[in-house]
């Protein structure tokens, strides 16, 4: 069966867009795991909150995309700050089990709190762009998708710059590589942990806000994505941010191809099949180091 090139390109572009969203979520999860050594079960709800802020800010601001996005990102930063100081800062070292329960609790409170306030009915939001877009040959891509992809790419460039070119970000990598060595050079682990949580929340909020005008906004939306994000950080190698980002992009494209050629059901399972395969063949993940942390 010959594959229509235009159709394949369309699928790939859609997949890339989806992959960038996955990568944003997974990068934040990997960052928090690396620096705080906890799995944040509330990570999906951080995305959902970002989407809801966008969904309310857009009509309030007359549909203007960028100002509404700025509001969503600011709200996410604030949420990250509260999440850290209210809950995560109170966990002690080696408190992994308690961290699971605490973040699960936060997840449930946010999920059902949102459902109580705004009902479970999905919201549709419109922007100044409506359904306008750009055409690449016979493929049409809406502006909301183009901008979402552009913002995600900018976010990754910014993240890279912070992590590899500033002391502020280098300290995050330092804490996740070797906590004791970080103390040795004078890092304050609490400040670094707070910065990591705020950055992760903003990345997640960006994903949610970018999704809001593209997909339905509903309280449960984060839950669907969280478990995929878990699969992604395992595929990428726990704590490896580049691994998580790569796995996110790859999964987005893979899902889109599968959805385009097979029954849609397989699309949802693909990530987990890959995860299991990776766990069997390369337990440390694609980008993980075979010998895990020594510190």
């Amino acid at each position, binding site marked *: 069966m010959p594959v229509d090139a235009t159709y394949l390109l369309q699928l790939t572009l859609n997949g890339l867009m989806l992959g960038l969203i996955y990568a944003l979520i997974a990068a934040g999860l990997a960052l928090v795991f690396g620096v705080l050594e906890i799995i944040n079960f509330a990570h999906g709800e951080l995305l959902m909150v970002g989407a809801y802020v966008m969904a309310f800010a857009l009509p309030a601001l007359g549909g203007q995309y960028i100002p509404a996005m700025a509001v969503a990102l600011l709200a996410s930063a604030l949420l990250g700050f509260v999440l850290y100081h209210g809950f995560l800062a109170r966990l002690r070292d080696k408190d992994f089990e308690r961290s699971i329960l605490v973040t699960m609790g936060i997840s449930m409170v946010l999920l059902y709190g949102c459902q109580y306030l705004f009902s479970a009915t999905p919201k549709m939001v419109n922007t100044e762009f409506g359904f306008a877009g750009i055409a690449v040959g016979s493929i049409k891509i809406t502006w909301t998708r183009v901008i979402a992809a552009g913002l995600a790419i900018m976010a990754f460039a910014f993240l890279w710059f912070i992590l590899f070119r500033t002391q502020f970000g280098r300290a995050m990598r330092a804490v996740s590589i070797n906590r004791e*060595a970080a103390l040795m050079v004078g890092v304050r682990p609490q400040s670094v942990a707070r910065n990591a949580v705020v950055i992760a929340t903003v990345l997640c909020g960006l994903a949610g806000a970018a999704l809001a005008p593209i997909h339905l906004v509903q309280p449960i939306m984060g839950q669907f994505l969280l478990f995929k994000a878990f699969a992604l950080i395992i595929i990428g190698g726990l704590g490896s941010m580049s691994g998580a980002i790569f796995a996110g992009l790859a999964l987005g494209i893979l899902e889109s191809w599968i959805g385009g050629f097979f029954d849609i059901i397989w699309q949802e399972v693909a990530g987990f099949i890959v995860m299991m395969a990776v766990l069997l063949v390369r337990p440390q993940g694609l980008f993980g180091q075979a010998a895990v942390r020594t510190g």
Partner: protein
Amino acid sequence: MACALDIRALTAGYGDLPVVHDFSAAIEAGTVTTLIGGNGAGKSTLMRALFGTCRLFAGEIIFLGVPIERMHPWERLAHGIGLVPQGRCNFASMRVAENFKMACYSLQRADHDRAIARTLQLFPALKPKMSVMAGNLSGGEQQMLEMAMVMVPSPKLLLLDEPSLGLSPKMQQDVFSMARQVASIGVTVLMVEQNAHGALLASDTAIVLELGRNVLAGPANAVIRDPRIRLAYLGERSTERLS
């Protein structure tokens, strides 16, 4: 000489468990002191207590006239205390150059390059290794790197926890002569050593720790001749000595 570090009745440990008990010692500025003691005696715990990375139950630590026992590790670093912990303690997946950059964390941006260059003069062997991943250096090179990293912000007190552990005899000698060299520029050095003989030869003073208590302190050349110390820590069996 002036007393740089005055430890008074220090009790420290983890959780609810004190490991070091009622430890007192006065260490003079610009000297090398070796702390010896058996496994689990609490040597590392004492070092952590001085840097602020374990729990303090009681006692005082006066460093250059300032009580520091309530300070966080980064505040102690700012006061001139540096600790090279036991075992590997660097950023293995960063290059040596970036490890040095992290070592500048407590310094102003404008001082980074100068501080790194000054430290590299003390550790010239690391110069050709700047673009190597720290985790790919040999054990001895990693130990040197860690000492160098702690020297970057110019500490006045250098705490070394078993710096010669796992090194070749040649590298062990290098570590001890490095300690002497650091002391010669006015830094007070306190090191824990398993290789008590080599360390004592390079030291001015020795302290013996047993079960978390200071049981003996004195000039290194006297401690090295003490028959009890020879028996317990210098690997000597008294009967064999006579034959």
